[in-house]
């Protein structure tokens, strides 16, 4: 190819032009023939937006299809865009027109047939139903629970179970996977929501594909692929969260794209708001749903940026106002939806329950029963002579504790200790958790009429109630954290080690008002968060988080730490009463009264924020213990591992094993690669100003690529960055994008092969592939539905990958 430069360029140019002329006809013919083809056959009513695309794409001036939020260069195409906007239909904001897409309905019916068929089988707990079913039951009983995931999914399940069977009172114990449901548990009601949302998902996928410019045939194919995927089928048939998550997410994307098509009309505001609403719903099922919300927000923004911002007929202030309005609405919708979901959550769950101890004392006190009953009627102001229990306020719940045992003289690593009385943090209520607050200069502990209230900055002694010894710290290395000081109850061993029992009270975060300044604040039981600063060393009393060995009864270590400002140094008074008289102190301690009463009030706002904070913390401190079926993100690409969801018991091989349709799964992974190659190839060619496909096909491809590939990459790559136990089902949001990405690749291949001989080959391969997909689906159906039971050899034959551990019972046929 070493021609002269001039000749080559001429040659290349004419070649290019010819190619372009040939190809530029492609999309319009494609669209119209496709459209007619389908319209004739099925007589569908396609929605207004897509028909307007067609009309426009035929007009010679429109270079950029309106179906795209224009990836292409904006300035060069301004003229054409103006026409689009002028043509935009002026629709009334208040007029709502209903359209029924028969294809979508058809897909829904087909999907529902697979999802709802024999839904109550198996009639026993399957995998994570253990958790979600339990949470739904707790909703029934209004018992507070703590879960690092947001509550919407569980609320929906509880609601539908309530609707289907009002008599269920939530008393079923979801104790272990496989235990059978008694007939009074509304299992159909509980599984209804995932099944319903799983059934509409193929239609959503179809609509989304249509919206981003994929032809009818391939859009339907995307719906079919979702119907015929075993993993999605399994997830839809049980009380699991993936279907609400993905369905709401897809809806959010659909409305975002709809909004971009009508930027001029007020309807776009409505669509943006709906999009934000569904995005927030998705986010409120699991936080990974925030990717859908973010994508929707970005799609709308990008559309503004590329199509509206360059327009000269808007002034800059007008434009900013418009964008501002859209995002204000977006944000307000998000906020309102998210907060109301939590409002419902917190207003239903009013009873104390097993997870109380995760929350602060103040939060617990606002729940009926539990702590509220204990602290009822106790005085508020901590003063000289107060008997208190000190709770480690944030993080692991435990109470400051001491007992008569001393620190061992020598630790196992050879260091010595002070051999004074141990001070620990104990995770259970105990009489040894009581301490008495004392002014250093006053001896009588009884509280008089005039209370000597402790304020921020006061120096106090803390007397251990049962042993009467003073809380002390000194320059001796702590047992488990040698870099910190030991804390003990002081015993004078006469070894010239004077007591250093003075502690300064520092109240954290102000007196409860808006001001963060703690000067002059009084120390209040339950609500005040305090740090106790050891006066002589300036260090803060801290729960180190380490467990003491046997000599410390495996309780937690308490030390003082140089780093004052940290969560582990915060304490609060939980139980509190005044010492009546000096003599009966011990007797009083032993007779801790327990009177059940009404809860205190805590505002929704502070409860909301506390819950948010705890959820954030607990998702940060991950559960890293491994699970037999946990997998790593890189294993998901090739479906290397499944998850045993349920087994039918001895004598039968009936089981549910989470595995996707291997054919779709593997071709999908290959499709990602193919798509990258195709787009990369065009990008490089275009950089050299070689336009292999016309602008319209290109910008449609880019739009599809950015939504499907973007969504896939976001949801998939994210999992590489988190540090917790992951399972195959975490891949499903990415998987749905992967299916659509594959569809878009196929659609594009179809477009470019349409007028060559290759089209027969392409269609043949496609058909063969679909047959293969169906075959795989039916082969794996028994392990997806849980029936019928397969024999040992059938299961062995199903092991297409040696890593799939189907469970074969030893006494099975």
């Amino acid at each position, binding site marked *: 190819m070493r021609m002269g*430069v*001039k000749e*080559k*360029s*001429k040659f*290349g*140019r004419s070649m*290019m*032009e010819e190619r372009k002329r040939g190809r530029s006809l492609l999309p319009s013919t494609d669209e119209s023939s496709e459209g007619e083809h389908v319209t004739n056959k099925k007589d569908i009513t396609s929605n207004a937006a897509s028909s307007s695309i067609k009309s426009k794409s035929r007009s*010679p001036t429109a*270079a*950029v299809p309106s179906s795209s939020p224009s990836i*292409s*260069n*904006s*300035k*060069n*195409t*301004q*003229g*054409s865009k103006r026409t689009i906007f002028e043509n935009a239909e002026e629709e009334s904001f208040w007029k709502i027109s209903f359209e029924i897409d028969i294809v979508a309905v058809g897909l829904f019916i087909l999907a529902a047939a697979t999802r709802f068929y024999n839904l109550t089988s198996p009639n026993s707990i399957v995998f994570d139903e253990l958790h979600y079913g339990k949470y739904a039951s707790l909703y029934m009983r209004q018992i507070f629970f703590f879960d690092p995931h947001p509550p919407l999914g569980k609320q929906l399940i509880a609601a539908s179970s309530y609707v289907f069977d009002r008599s269920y009172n939530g008393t079923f114990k979801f104790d272990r996977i496989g235990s059978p449901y008694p007939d009074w548990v509304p299992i159909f009601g509980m599984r209804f929501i995932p099944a319903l949302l799983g059934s509409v998902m193929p239609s959503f996928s179809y609509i989304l594909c249509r919206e981003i410019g994929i032809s009818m045939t391939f859009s339907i194919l995307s719906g079919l692929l979702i119907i015929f995927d075993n993993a999605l089928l399994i997830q839809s048939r049980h009380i699991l969260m993936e279907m609400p998550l993905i369905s709401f997410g897809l809806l959010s994307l659909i409305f975002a794209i709809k909004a971009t098509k009508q930027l001029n009309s007020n309807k776009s505001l409505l669509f943006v708001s709906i999009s934000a609403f569904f995005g927030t719903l998705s986010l409120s099922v699991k936080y990974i749903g925030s990717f859908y919300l973010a994508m929707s927000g970005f799609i709308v923004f990008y559309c503004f*940026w*590329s199509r509206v*911002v*360059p327009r*000269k007929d808007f002034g*800059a202030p007008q434009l900013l106002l418009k964008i501002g309005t859209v995002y204000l609405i977006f944000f307000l919708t998000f906020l309102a939806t998210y907060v109301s979901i939590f409002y419902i959550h917190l207003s239903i769950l009013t009873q104390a329950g097993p997870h109380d101890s995760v929350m602060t004392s103040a939060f617990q006190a606002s729940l009926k029963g539990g702590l509220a009953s204990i602290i009822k009627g106790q005085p508020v102001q901590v003063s000289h002579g107060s008997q208190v229990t000190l709770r480690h306020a944030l993080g692991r719940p435990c109470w400051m504790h001491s007992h008569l045992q001393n620190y061992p003289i020598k630790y196992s690593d050879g260091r010595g200790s002070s051999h004074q009385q141990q001070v620990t943090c104990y995770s259970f209520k105990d009489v040894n958790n009581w301490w008495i607050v004392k002014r250093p200069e006053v001896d009588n502990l009884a509280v008089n009429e005039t209370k000597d209230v402790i304020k921020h900055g006061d120096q106090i002694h803390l007397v251990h109630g049962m042993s009467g010894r003073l809380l002390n710290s000194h320059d001796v290395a702590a047992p488990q*954290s040698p870099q910190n000081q030991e804390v003990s109850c002081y015993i004078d061993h006469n070894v010239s080690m004077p007591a250093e029992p003075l502690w300064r009270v520092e109240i954290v975060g102000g007196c409860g008002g808006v001001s963060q300044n703690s000067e002059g604040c009084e120390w209040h039981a339950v609500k005040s968060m305090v740090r106790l600063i050891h006066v002589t060393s*300036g260090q803060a009393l801290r*729960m*180190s*988080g*380490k*467990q003491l060995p046997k000599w410390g009864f495996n309780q937690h270590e308490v030390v003082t*730490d*140089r*780093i*004052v*400002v*940290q969560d*582990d140094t915060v304490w609060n008074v939980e139980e509190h009463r005044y010492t009546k008289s000096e003599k009966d102190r011990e007797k009083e301690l032993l007779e801790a009264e327990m009177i059940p009463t009404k809860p205190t009030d805590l505002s929704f706002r502070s409860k909301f924020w506390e819950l948010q904070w705890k959820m954030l913390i607990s998702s940060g401190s991950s559960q890293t*213990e*491994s*699970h*037999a079926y946990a997998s790593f993100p890189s294993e998901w690409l090739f479906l290397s591992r499944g998850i045993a969801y349920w087994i039918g018991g001895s004598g039968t091989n009936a089981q549910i094993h989470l595995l996707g349709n291997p054919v779709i799964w593997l071709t999908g992974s290959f499709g990602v690669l193919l798509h990258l190659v195709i787009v990369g190839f065009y*990008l*490089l060619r*275009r*950089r*050299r*100003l070689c*336009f292999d496909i016309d*602008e319209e096909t290109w910008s449609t491809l880019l739009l599809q690529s950015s939504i499907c590939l973007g969504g896939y990459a976001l949801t998939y790559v994210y999992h*590489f*960055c*988190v*540090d917790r136990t992951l399972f195959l089902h975490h891949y499903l949001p990415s998987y749905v994008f992967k299916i659509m990405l594959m569809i878009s690749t196929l659609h594009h291949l179809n477009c470019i092969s349409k007028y060559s001989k290759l089209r027969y080959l392409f269609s043949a391969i496609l058909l063969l592939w679909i047959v293969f997909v169906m075959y795989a689906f039916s082969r794996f159906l028994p392990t997806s539905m849980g029936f019928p039971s397969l024999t040992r050899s059938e299961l062995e034959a199903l092991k297409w990958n*040696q890593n799939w551990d189907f469970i074969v019972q030893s006494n099975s046929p």
Partner: protein
Amino acid sequence: MQAIGRRSLRNSTPRESPTPENDPLKPRRWVRTRGRLAKSPLSEFSDTDTETEAANQNHFIRPATPKRYSKTFSNSGSNHTNINHILNNSRYANDISYSNSHIIMAKESSAKSGSSKGAQNKTDQTKNKSSGSSSESQKQKSQTSSASGINYNDTHWSWGVFLLILVLGVGTRFYKVEEPDHVCWDETHFGKMGSWYINRTFFFDVHPPLGKMMIGAFGYLTGYNGTFPFESPGQKYNETKYVGMRVCCTALGSMLVPLTYLTVWEMTESTSAACLAAAFILFDVGLLTLTQYILLDPILLFFISGSVYTSVKFYTYRNTPFTFVWWTWLVLSGVFIACAISVKFVGLFTVLYIGFRTIYELWEILGDLTKPITYTMKHFIARAMCLIALPIALYVTFFYIHLAVLNRSGNGDGFYSSAFQSQLIGNPLYNASMPREVAYGAMISLKSQRTGGGYLHSHWHLYPEGVGAKQQQITTYAHKDDNNKWIIKKFDEPAPKLDNKSAPIELIKNGDLIRLEHIVTKRNLHTHRIPAPVTKKQWQVTGYGENGTGDANDVWRIEVLGGKPGDHINVVSSRLRFFHQLQNCILSGTGKQLPKWAYEQMEVSCSPNHRDVRKSTYWNIEENHFPRLPNVSFQVHAPNFIEKLVESHTIMFEGNAGLKPKEGEVTSRPWQWPINYRGQYFSGSTYRIYLLGNPIIWWANLALLPLFAVIYIYHAWKEQRGYEENVDIKAARDKTVTVCGWLFVGWALHYLPFYTMGRVLYFHHYFPALLFSSMLSAVIIDYFIRLLISTVSFLKDNGFFHVMYGLTLSTVAYSFYLFAPLSYGTSGPLAVEENSTMHGLKWLDSWEF
């Protein structure tokens, strides 16, 4: 000419906007295009400053002609920006400020005499004349560029400033370099590792070897003999020659200042911006502290800084490709990134950064339609060679040296396989002499063949309540001790005593049933159907029985990989598997860490999966003590270099992943770093040194990052709206956004990934990102001062300019003066107390000085 064809082709595409002639809004846009199509506009350009314009013309006809400030076809994907860039570049070409550099380059190319520095120096003298003439010509030529353009009057290279910066940098770093005379902070690790290089004893560390090797070399060259133990921070050096190592590290660290100056100068051509950036690095007490000690960080930061400089410098030669200087800088930048990643794996982010820059450059070259596609390929291959192949080669070389130097047994042996260890002088396996075959009654140790796997181990501790059966723990443990020793005996009879001379010698055969008895505790290796502590789907392995008698669950079948039934078992080379006779499972060292109750040793379990062919189920006998068999000195199959390299890396990555924070440990979180939330003690008690950034600089960095975002958005908005504005202002902003964009990418790449890391993080991990952040701040400040001067008319005289720079520099310098005691060391009372020299400077409660 080829391009003309393509270009007109592009004109024929439907989305092309109106032609320039009839679009009144864009008068300047098509000038360049017309310039290429027709000659007439060119003649407009080329009437005054002939030297510059000659270069300009050359640009169109022979683009390879040396010329610095015209990117040929520019950077971004869309075509209209191409044109804008060309337009901008034409501005640059005619701008007062940039004309100088044309002359520089023109001189360079024509005269080819002396170094580029020399040429730049010369232009100082010619500056006045040429700028005068070209400004005249500019006024004639362009109507849109008014006198209000932003002037970079000081774009000449100033040796004076550079030398001053250099002297200050070296001076501040070397002041009190020998103090304190005790071990500071991580000197205890890296000093120790340096000693090990000098002593050539093998050790294990999670970082690649170059940094420590350099420390070792520094010590060796400056007379340190490697005997100081570096036990713990605070240990006095006394007679030890530690100063040499400190001086060398400090020397590298002090190079950060001039390198930053050079980098920013190459990026912006503005002496004032370069000065500011250098001052930000110079006056940061954090960097000062971090680069004064025997640590990896000064070395790492030097290489990172060097990589950035060389790649930026390389970019300035983009119009003279494949010349000698071009190759020099390309190779240098390859060398620097290789060094950066060979010091710490954080260098990977630098490699990514250079990678992005390279992709961008290639994208630019690909878009230059005047060049054939093979030209892009040539560029690609050149970069692949110098930035991929060369660094890999260097990296491997460093490892080769590392493994060649460390040829004596040390404390890192146990992490490595038996075969690896047999190469280390002094290791029991080196030239080992022990019985080749294993007999019943032999005292053996078993090593897991999993990479980094330890020895089968047990000790006098039981599994705790709730973790399977409460029997004795079995673990794998990487260090050698007596608890790794086992006696191998027949399944049905006790082993003969080792020193019993009369007992018959019976060799163990492949397929035999055996029991393994732990020598110290006299319990047998045992398993049962109870889930293992971590890997729940495998069975727990315990030590069971009293004085060697257990139950039927102690019986194992020994199998040799690839062995025939009846084969004898060889030490080290036989790969063994232990099948449990009753439970039908395989003994496996899973490599999962057990909690504290097992002293964080590794789990051992019995895997019921027979197809489990992972290395974790294989074991080899490492020690074999049996006096009645003759000892042979056996030659193990020594691993070759590649095998050693791969093994070292697997172990390093596992080590890195294992650095998880323990519960309750206060670890530094990435969000704390940019706000300078909490520092790190280098030296406590009497002579205190505290690693903390200069709060003025750090908080300025923090504030200027959002400001950059604002400028960026503003710029993008203007572009997108297609506003007409003063070309000079636009060009200056364009340039600032480009430069800052790259610096921002550097900052983000060196900072954001830490959020995803589960391992223990420290404050000093932020410092590579800080380099970029400081440079970014300097460029932004410089831009704003210039913008103010050019837009606000009464600030135009030079006085304001100097006042602003004076103010900025003196603020930074004064804050350095205030906080310098943190790094030079303080004694006496803490800052909270009245009589402290640092009183009043504890601005945040979380600071601990």
